[in-house]
């Protein structure tokens, strides 16, 4: 569904993305992980067209996006920190988006709005909202138009456990519908059950992109978090193994 070919992006001296290639298919839930500043957000922003890569190509449904914008119709995006016009009320925000998108009403997915009971806060201006509520709004917007691809940047950060659970349920449900879901996170515990693939970035380089089962076998860890932690430490033979796989791949 999404194919990335040799993406490189520099911010001044910093190489945020270094020659990254990957391919994501429908039905996959990809955990995009890596330490802070490893280029996760830059990568998804590149997919969204918010960041323009210096070189490389991104294909969406086999089509080179090349600065286009129509393809974003099929992407629901939940930013890391949802920032919205201060003076706008929640209700207005949803109405505005619906108005701009002008999609048929039957495709609208209001489930999260209901689950989070956002309707009762429709009259609240965005500037008065807590971080958690903003996250809920962001999540609701991401799923609103029933997109075939979901890109969620740190979705559970700032959510209380209950809301987090609601979101997880929702993600699972969408996954089962055969959607592609990209999740970035540096905390892995709450994504364990959902993830089908792990993509690991470090200093702008992709360390690996692997099926979770394989990864578990390789690392010998059931818990994903521990597996990753071991990779991060870099002392584990699995790390070497992974880089071996990668070098093979690039060949």
């Amino acid at each position, binding site marked *: 569904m999404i194919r990335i070919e040799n993406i490189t992006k520099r911010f001044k001296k910093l190489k945020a993305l270094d020659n990254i290639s990957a391919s994501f298919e429908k039905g996959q839930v990809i955990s995009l992980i890596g330490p802070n500043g490893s280029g996760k957000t830059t990568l998804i*922003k590149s997919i969204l*067209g918010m960041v323009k890569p210096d070189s490389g190509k991104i294909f969406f449904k086999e089509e080179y996006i090349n600065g286009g*914008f129509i393809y*974003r119709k099929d*992407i629901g995006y939940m930013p890391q920190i949802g920032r*919205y*016009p201060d003076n706008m009320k929640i209700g207005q925000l949803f109405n505005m988006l619906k108005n*701009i998108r002008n999609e048929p009403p039957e495709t609208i997915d209001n489930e999260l709005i209901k689950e989070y009971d956002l309707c009762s806060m429709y009259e609240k201006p965005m500037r008065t909202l807590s971080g958690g509520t903003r996250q809920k709004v962001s999540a609701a917007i991401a799923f609103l138009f029933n997109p075939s691809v979901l890109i969620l940047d740190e979705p559970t950060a700032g959510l209380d456990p209950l809301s987090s659970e609601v979101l997880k349920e929702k993600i699972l449900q969408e996954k089962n519908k055969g959607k592609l879901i990209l999740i970035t996170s540096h905390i892995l515990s709450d994504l364990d059950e959902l993830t089908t693939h792990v993509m690991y970035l470090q200093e702008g380089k992709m360390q690996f992109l692997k099926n979770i089962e394989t990864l578990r076998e390789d690392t010998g860890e059931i818990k994903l978090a521990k597996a990753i932690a071991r990779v991060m430490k870099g002392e584990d033979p699995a790390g070497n193994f992974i880089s071996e796989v990668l070098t093979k791949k690039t060949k």
Partner: protein
Amino acid sequence: MMKLSKYVLYDILRSKIIIAYTLFLFIVSLSLFQMEEDSSKAMLSLMNIILIALPLVSLVFTTIHYYNSYEFIELMLSQPLSRKKILLSEYTGISLSLLSAFLIGVGIPVAFYAASETGMAMLFTGSTLTLVFTSIAFFASVRARDKAKGIGFALLLWFYFTLIYDGIVLLILFSFSDYPLEKFTLLISALNPIDLGRIFIMLKMDVSALMGYTGALYKDFFGSGTGLLFTVGVMILWITLPLWLAVRKFRKKDI
């Protein structure tokens, strides 16, 4: 695009600054006309407001608004909308609100007290300068990375267009006073929208003086159909060019 502009406009109206600006213009123009029994003197003060305050407000307001609506722009960027459309909608929204503030705040008093050719020239100049400086502010904002730099850049531009540019022109006029500079001065006036607007008003206000000396040349040129076309053309260029550059930059920009 109008849909988006509508939301931009709506957002601006809610911030109330634009309403304060409208009221300010209205009260100032009204009191000018009330205080001065001679409307020509009020027009003179009004001209200074149009040539000095209007560009400043347009620049600063637009820059601040641009940075304040960064969230909105971000949100829109995740939607299937082209960047050009988003930026142009922002421009339409801001320029429309500033323009209506001007036309209500200054236009109504002028229509009541000085619906003369001079008055019309002032409304024309004020309107175009609003559009021009909104456009220039977009250029500055898109180029500068953060708000402080953006506002600084905008202020610098204002300073340049209102003061420094004319200072340089005067310096040139005196350094090369032995040469025939009439054509040159005509040309350089086009390179500063404020100067161009000022000359446009002067053509109506100071027609007597402009008929004297080399002034007659300006009067002949700017007063003719060609001159009017030139003025309007250059103004349109001043509106579209910075906006076009801004769009071009914005398209490549990382958000």
